[in-house]
């Protein structure tokens, strides 16, 4: 799997993604500088990592969404190839318009770093094809702005189209406001575009890659992408 991880000034989970992909799939991911105009030849997966791009100044993800590399990232997505935005990367994706909605300040008005549980709502995406539908993952979050928000009509449309991929839940898989750590509407933790090849998620799969660190539930996401890419590209 040829993975490119975009580095913006202030990204800080870029190397963690590289490590997670290496640890799970024994392949090297490339770091791509935000000022580049092209992705490395043959890139199959693009990851916009977590962090504080441009210090989160102005608005989370707003400046990164205007950086030069985004043109190539957009083209990558238009070709139907997988594009994953994690945490700050999710915020960049909503700012570029590749995903709908916005990430607002957590209900608690505090940064939250903790494990939470999310339920896999769809397992027919490149990112989740090796998870079970309804499977509960234990996975960390670490953000100040993670409350997913959409106007009511758009939210209805999103739900109708089944574009919610992950939802915060109890360890048993029950979805309720109580189990949403940040107050996201409908407990939304991750959404895709209509085509299903662009995923934005607040939880960090790269932080749930090894049981030594507390959970390995995130590793399946990289394996899913690997499998899906092999199948769809007819390797």
């Amino acid at each position, binding site marked *: 799997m040829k993975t490119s991880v975009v580095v913006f000034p202030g990204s*800080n989970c870029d190397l963690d993604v590289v490590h*997670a992909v290496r640890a799970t799939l024994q392949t090297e991911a490339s770091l791509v500088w935000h000022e580049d105009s092209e992705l490395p030849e043959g890139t199959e997966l693009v990851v916009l990592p*977590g962090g504080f791009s441009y*210090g989160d100044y102005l608005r989370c993800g707003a400046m990164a969404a205007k950086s030069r590399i985004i043109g190539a990232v957009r083209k990558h997505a238009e070709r139907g190839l997988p594009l994953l935005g994690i945490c700050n990367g999710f915020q960049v994706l909503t700012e570029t318009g590749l995903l709908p909605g916005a990430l607002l300040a957590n209900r608690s008005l505090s*940064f939250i770093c903790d494990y939470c549980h999310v339920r896999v709502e769809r397992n027919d995406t490149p990112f989740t094809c090796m998870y079970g539908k309804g499977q509960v993952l234990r996975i*960390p979050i670490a953000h100040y702005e993670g409350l997913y928000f959409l106007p009511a009509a758009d939210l209805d449309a999103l739900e109708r189209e089944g574009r919610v991929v992950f939802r915060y839940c109890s360890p048993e898989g029950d979805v309720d406001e109580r189990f949403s750590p940040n107050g996201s509407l409908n407990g939304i933790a991750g959404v895709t575009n209509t085509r299903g090849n662009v995923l934005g998620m607040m939880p960090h799969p790269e932080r749930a890659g090894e049981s*030594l*660190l507390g959970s390995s539930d995130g590793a399946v996401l990289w394996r899913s992408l690997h499998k899906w890419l092999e199948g769809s590209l007819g390797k």
Partner: protein
Amino acid sequence: MKPDFREVGLKESEYRAIIKILGREPNTPELRILGVMWSEHCSYKSTRPLLAKFPNTGGAVVQGPGENAGIVDAGGGWGVAFKVESHNHPSAVAPFQGAATGVGGIIRDILAMGARPVATLDGLCLGDGNSAHTRSLAEGIVKGIAGYGNAVGVPTVGGKTIYDGCYNGNPLVNAMCVGIVPLDSVVSSKTAKPGQLAILVGSRTGRDGIAGAAFASSELTDDTRSSRPKIQIGDPFVEKLLIECCLDIHSRGLIVGMQDMGAAGITSSSSEIAAKSGTGIVIRSDLVPLREENMKPWEIALSESQERMLLIAEPENLPEIERTARKWELECAPIGEITDDGLFVIMDKDEMIVSLPAGMVGGSCPVLPWPSRKPAEKTIMQRTAAPSADQPGYILDQLLGMLGDPNLADKSEIYHQYDYMVQTNTVIPPGSGISVIRIRENGRLIGLTMEVDPWKCDIDPFTGAAETFLKALRPLWVSGAEHLAMTNCLNYPSPENPENFWVLSRSVEGFAAVARDLVCPVVSGNVSLYNESTGSRILPSPLVGVVGLYEKTENLLRESTLRDGDLIFLAGTSGATLNGSHLARRTGMEPISTPFDYLPEREVAFMRSALKTSRENLASSGRAIAGGGLLISMAKTCIASGRGIRLDIPVSAKLPELLFGEGGARALYSVPPSCENQFISAWSGIPVIRIGEAGGSELSMGTVMNIPLHHLEQIWRR
């Protein structure tokens, strides 16, 4: 007009010494510079002879004190750089920015060694835990640490938070940073040579924080607003870029030296390099990129603007360094060069502003010998409310009261605001007596602990400090790590009071004794004196940070992995006392000035047995007994494991000491029945007693108590 020497914080004797060294009167900029560089904060003039008592070589030590941080060998060609530093005064005046820049400053100290910062820990000593003022101050401090540490991408993996009324006007914020560096590319500040350039990378220089070091060297006054201009403002985004930029430059061999700009900014970083390298340095203030107009050369020289580093490099590497800085969108300017005349010179275009011997600025100033006097013995008071085990409900009442006390209660509200997982190496996160991270580069785990116990140091500074240090060592041993070295921050009130100075000296001796006896050298540290404000002064609060190394990942023994049917053992039974304990304080028992036990040979024996227990997998969990004593440790183990314990301890008059006494080498273990005999033999020579069995969902003890875990947890989580 030339300021009086007193206005810049110098004493008359110091001013006379300056004239003697120079053979003339210093001019105004020189006087201001010496006022800052000879301040307590920069010069350690009150404590230098005391600090010389610390053993600082041997064992795993690669770099002892004298550089920006100490370094120990962690195996496989990798070193661990670490240091703790205070940011007390700024945090009292501006909690958010004070704490934030404290984190930023210590991260740059680690960076200056050529190390990648991989973890921070914070020691917070806050005022009365139930007061509104403390809550608002604490919120600012925690949000400052979170705001900076999270954005800079260095996980906050642990620390220590305590509450006491003595910190009401004087909160302490001590930040420790840990970094990883290949041992063959450690950066030194002693290797500059004439002809090399001094290059400033990072933020532009402004008027923020001018003379902040002198501010940190005096008592806080009521009019703290006038101190605001002395507070620095942090920008973690620039710090993140600075880390990546400097490591990028260093990894390509483009520099020979690096120094962070903390207290006294350009002056301290450049004069220290010159003094340590035995060279001179000339700084051209007109070449420093500024963010404010009309700054005077001395203001530029003393500005404490954050997120700046001074690089020393051969001139031919300048273009590549500039190119790298541009990539990271940072300012970069050659602002001076190393000379061979031994002088620290500031030029403003063609005008010489300052010319002083470098050793006088960045080397050492005369030691201030403060008088020392042992305080009168505290009167041994009749203990009020003498604890009695046979009063019905006494044990349970005290347990529940202590679990909900801010000092012992759950602190997740604080640490969940910190990103403690970024870099994906955090094996044991905050919330335990120990934090553990992995070094990916060599596959080893390191354990990190931090301790401060002002109450015990107040009772007896020598054994109280020794006990503080040991409290940081024992959790490492119990979890399976061997200690490598320690760092410390000496937080005290004014040394000018002879009794304070005696306490300071004795507690330094306490640290030194443990460092020597247990072979845990002191590799770095910081001193913060004058923690006083109108009407209050802090208790002696020496804080210690220790780094330990695990032989193998499998050796790691966790605190809260009880299994049903495990036998519960107390290993080590002596040394615990109610004197200075949480129980004593909450029940109003007067402290007695009786030294605590300090028995190094017993600690060594405890260490050997604890390491054997983890290495041979003889227990399913282990926890060094710390604040609050045995029963609090047990309650925390139960809550975190989600399993109960049935205690089987005979009721006796000694019960309060056993259950709530503190101090001494003691640990709580849960042992699978199949390992019982091996466990006992691993502890031969040290008393071990079986005190119960794991199982059920209550913490119970015969007729004394029987309390459901969910109830314990509710109280602990407040």
